[in-house]
């Protein structure tokens, strides 16, 4: 690091507290957006028979919304444990790529800090942390990845997720049957918005179409929740073969 960079870093690198606040400020808009999403998940989980203790336990230990929505959709009493775990892994396999992308920015941190930090890595905190690290690297601020900023961006998010999913589970039964009002349509809506966010053009979405068609056919023809595994796997096989002509 050159002297000018060191000076810049002395000047711009705030204390841990101010970095934490900077992170909190940048995650506030996202925070407001997840509250209804968390309430809907909690309410739907309660309808599937999960208690107001089990719901925050799940969202607090797992902390990965997409996989929780998928798991709740498939939840039965008792649940098909292996199916739910396999689906959770498939939905969250993107974390592998996210962690690999973040890894070069984490070299200055000891593992005892990296491992807890990665527990809080979700789509939102990852995007904020990585964007901030790239911006700081371009500005010559070192270290590029600010752990207190990342903590400020992810801890409120974590707390809000656990609290509002728990609240949704407690309030859900009071609201009654969510289907009567059309609230169940919130599920496909959430999934479709997530899919739109992952959209990278028609070519990249071809495996999704394969998944949709296979899952729909299996759903119509085979009883049980096999349609999810069948649809997901056929999509992955399609992705594998379609990648060849890219």
């Amino acid at each position: 690091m050159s002297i000018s960079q060191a000076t810049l870093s002395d000047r711009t690198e705030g204390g841990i507290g101010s970095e934490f606040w900077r992170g909190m400020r940048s995650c506030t808009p996202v925070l407001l957006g997840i509250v209804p999403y968390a309430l809907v998940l909690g309410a739907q989980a309660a309808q599937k028979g999960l208690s107001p203790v089990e719901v925050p336990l799940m969202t607090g230990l797992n902390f990965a919304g997409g996989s929780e929505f998928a798991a709740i959709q498939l939840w039965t009493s008792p649940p098909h444990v292996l199916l739910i775990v396999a689906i959770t892994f498939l939905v969250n396999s993107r974390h592998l790529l996210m962690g690999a992308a973040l890894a070069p920015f984490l070299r200055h941190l000891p593992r005892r800090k990296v491992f807890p930090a990665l527990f809080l890595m979700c789509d939102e905190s990852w995007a904020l942390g990585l964007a901030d690290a790239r911006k700081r690297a371009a500005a010559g601020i070192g270290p590029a990845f600010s752990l207190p900023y990342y903590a400020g961006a992810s801890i409120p998010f974590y707390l809000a997720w656990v609290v509002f999913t728990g609240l949704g589970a407690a309030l859900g039964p009071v609201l009654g049957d969510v289907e009567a009002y059309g609230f169940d349509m919130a599920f496909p809506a959430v999934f479709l918005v997530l899919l739109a966010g992952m959209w990278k053009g028609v070519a990249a979405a071809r495996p999704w179409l394969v998944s949709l068609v296979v899952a729909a056919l299996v759903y119509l023809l085979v009883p049980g929740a096999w349609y999810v595994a069948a649809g997901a796997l056929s999509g992955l096989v399609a992705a594998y073969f379609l990648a060849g002509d890219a």
Partner: protein
Amino acid sequence: MIDPVNLLAIVLMASVTYLTRIGGYVILRNRTLSPRATAVMEAAPGCVLISVIAPDFVSDNPADLAALAITVLAATRLSMLPTVIVAIASAGVLRHLIG
């Protein structure tokens, strides 16, 4: 209020999720994935999500299908919260009108 099988499912879910979070850092840190492996991993979350909601696309209720079509349009144009509101409102109204 904790069912043992539910607890088992939750703990195993949380374990595989945490493995995906540290796995990229621990294993893929110093490796480059083949384009094929990258394509499969990038497609995976979308394939799962669309499979989970596939039954909604073959619903036998015309009101639900119409609401789903409106929701698809909304999802491509709006952010999370407005899309969810449009979806709930269209399903609620259409079920009363057609359902």
